[in-house]
């Protein structure tokens, strides 16, 4: 009784900005509040290219999902899916195959409630409220959803979210737990902020986010490589967002992309 009862969740407090709604705002969405926009403006001052980075990150998600669809993946686990804004995984995937199944995972109340609103009538997509850094709980919920068959290859997506995982959460173990839960030929799509590109702006962003509910932990290319144990990296490896298999000639400046992207295949 001395501990707070673990089954009582945090209250919903719209006065506190959330990273999910900040991202929505940067993408031009309207699913955000004054506090989110205020934080976003600070973010933009530290990293003026933030809108482009958000767009590029979202575009990478699309390309990664389509790439996996092309490689036969028909079920996705989207970790830290956030606010369902433009170009959600199930919408992208179903253009290639209407049978594709998706389980979204997020911990934030409003993001989850919002996702439920959108997915209410959808038998092949669901959202579960879990912390992605607690793989056992996430995997159990995913199994319980009945949407993911872990005997078949799974597309695990952690796009623009892993920079919220602190070192003390043991990131390698977290990725390894998902890797171990899926069969060979499964894929991992990964993108996160790095200090390798625009270190000054990155430091500014880290400073802005430090006091928020979602402090950020950028990682070097080497650190990200360390997370891909047990995966073989798909060409072109770990690269700035726009350089990962662009649709045609890239026109964006990779040095200002802020985020590394990569896709690995479980061996």
């Amino acid at each position, binding site marked *: *009784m*001395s501990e*707070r*009862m673990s*089954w*009582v*969740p*945090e*209250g*919903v407090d*719209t006065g506190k900005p959330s990273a999910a*709604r900040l991202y929505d705002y940067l*993408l*031009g*969405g*309207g*699913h*955000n*509040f004054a506090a989110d926009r205020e934080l976003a403006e600070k973010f933009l001052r530290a990293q003026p290219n933030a*809108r*482009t980075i*958000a*767009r590029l990150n*979202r*575009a990478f998600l*699309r390309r990664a999902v389509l790439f996996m669809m092309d490689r036969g993946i028909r079920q996705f686990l989207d970790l830290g899916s956030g*606010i369902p804004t*433009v*170009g959600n995984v199930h*919408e*992208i995937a179903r253009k290639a195959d209407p049978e594709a199944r998706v389980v979204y995972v997020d911990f934030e*109340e*409003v*993001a*989850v*409630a*919002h996702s*439920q*609103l959108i997915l209410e009538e959808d038998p092949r997509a669901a959202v579960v409220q879990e912390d992605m850094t607690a793989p056992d709980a996430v995997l159990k919920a995913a199994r319980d959803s009945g949407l993911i068959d872990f005997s078949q290859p799974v597309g695990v997506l952690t796009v623009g979210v892993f920079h919220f995982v602190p070192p003390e959460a043991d990131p390698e173990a977290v990725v390894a737990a998902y890797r171990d839960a899926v069969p060979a030929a499964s894929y991992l799509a990964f993108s996160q902020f790095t200090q390798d590109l625009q270190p000054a702006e990155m430091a500014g962003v880290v400073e802005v986010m430090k006091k928020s509910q979602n402090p950020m932990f950028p990682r070097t290319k080497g650190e990200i490589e360390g997370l891909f144990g047990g995966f073989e990296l798909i060409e072109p490896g770990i690269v700035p967002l726009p350089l990962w298999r662009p*649709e*045609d000639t890239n*026109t*964006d400046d990779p040095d200002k992309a802020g985020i590394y992207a990569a896709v690995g295949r479980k061996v």
Partner: protein
Amino acid sequence: MELPELAARWMNALTSTAYIPLSRAEIRQALLDSLVELPESPESVANRLVSLHATGPDSLRVTIEVLSPTFELPLLARLSSAYAQAMRMDAFDQQEQIKVAIVRAKQRVERTLKVSQARFQEVFESSALGIAITDFDDRCVEANDTLAEIVGLESGEDLGARPLIDFFHPEDAAALGVSYRRVREGRVDRFRDQRKLIRADGEPVWVHLAVSLLRDADGAPTHFVTMVEDISELHLLQRNLDHQLLHDSLTGLSNRQHFVTQLERQLDGRPITLYHLGLDAFSVVNNGLGHETGDKLLKIVANRLRAVADEKHAVLARIGGDEFALLTTSDNVTTTVEEIQEALTEPTFVDDHGIALSASIGVVDRPPAFATAAELMRCANAALRQAKARGKRQWALHDPHDDARRRGKYALAASMPGAWEHGEIKILYAPVHGLETNEVLGAVARLHWDDLSHNDCMELADSTGLSLPIGRWLLREACAQAAAWVAEFGDRAPTLHVGLGALQSRDEDLVADVKRALDETGLPREKLRIALDISSVLAGDDNAVVLHDSGVVTALDGFRGGHDELAALTEVPVRAVITRAPAPNPDSPLRQAMHDLIATVHSLGVRFGVDEVHTATDADHWRAAGADGVIGLLPALTAAEVTDLLARAASPPPAAS
């Protein structure tokens, strides 16, 4: 500019301002369609742009820049206006959506809270533990019915707003206050304790307490949670177990261990008296009427003794099968002994058997303060043995001096069987001198163990039950030795005298033992003299008569000249009596009396021998008084030494100087 080229330029401009989740080909096609449609319906184009999510902050600006060379300003103005309107509507939609999401999220949180609260209530209400949530003013904010039950109230609400401390035992309040404070100050996470609560009816109840903190969402402490487990039943069980460990299950009295503990507690210089009771002839009841009857009798005895003890505020215990102990203070021993006997004498009927009861009692009265409980118990026991030796319904006061002697003897007796087994007890042969001729008449076989005399050895052997086997061994060994001397020296071989202990003298197998010894060793029976303890004859035993009838010459040892002894001599055919007495020297007023006694014995046809005569002077006095023979003038010799003497001397050893 051709429309497809324009569409491509538009796409490149737009996609750098907003994320459009479509392939470039799809986007280009959508924009080409829009260009075709634009002159007719700029509003449709605006809606399409917004639905494509071409809604970045710069999306409209780049659109106007790309399209303005090709399209008229009024058309672009209409497009801009419709775009703004579509954006507004889209924003409203999104805001509406997010509001619904917020409401949903809140509802879910509330639902979860409700569920968790319901779970908490369920745990709270159905818990077998009493639970109280108190604020820092010690008021019960909430308490469950279990707690109410523990403290003897109707429901948890009855505890409402009452200070929890009201229910703590006053002696515990201060210490518990400190413990609560330590929890509140975060010095410990929680504390557990075993304490007494005071029920509403004033009765104490033993509880386990577990106390910890409740904190608010920011982690600041707000309340105490006190969990209370009623362990009174456990406590009673524990006490019951303790009771079983300290009490006799049959009578419910304290057991020996408990009694000794209580005795120790009272050894502080108080004038205590310790009574050790042994029921007389209880084994007769047990063996004759059965153990069940015996048990019933013991219960009756316990109850009667309890009445005596209660009246005296004495401690009573059953410390052995038929033994009880009573501890009193400032007591009159004779009165208490009388009261005990009176209580027991009252006729007792058990299973239709009328049983008369009495006890032998050993008493230790007002022992010195330095005595230990164990010593007192042993002394009381020794006194009880003394009392029992005197017969039934006797009591004896512990005599510390007597006890020391007894203890030395017991220690010796205890080591006797081992000594015998290891050959430490030897047979020596002491010459018997005829006073008339000053010749050696024979040899007395004697036990010898360290510096103990034969008589001491026999007495010890009697007290250990060893006297019979040792006596038989002595008889047989000595006969064998005497037979060997007869074989070697013929007539010159000494006549064997064997003195028997009191028990062996009365042993019903004695005659057979003697016969067997003679038969097996081949010793002629005229070469054997058996000295029986005179107590056997006085007790009416006929061993002396039967031995005489068998042709064995007997003597009676331990003669003291009593009337009963002289009377026995008239009835039992014995050759001699043997006495131990100071030599009747000429100055002694008893000289004449001894002279007369010896004359009387002689008149009965019985010879008079004296044991333990160690000097020639004494021997002379005895000779003068008329005695026939003495033992002890020369030290006893081993069989080999005797053999050696016999071999070397044609004549018997000279008299002592």
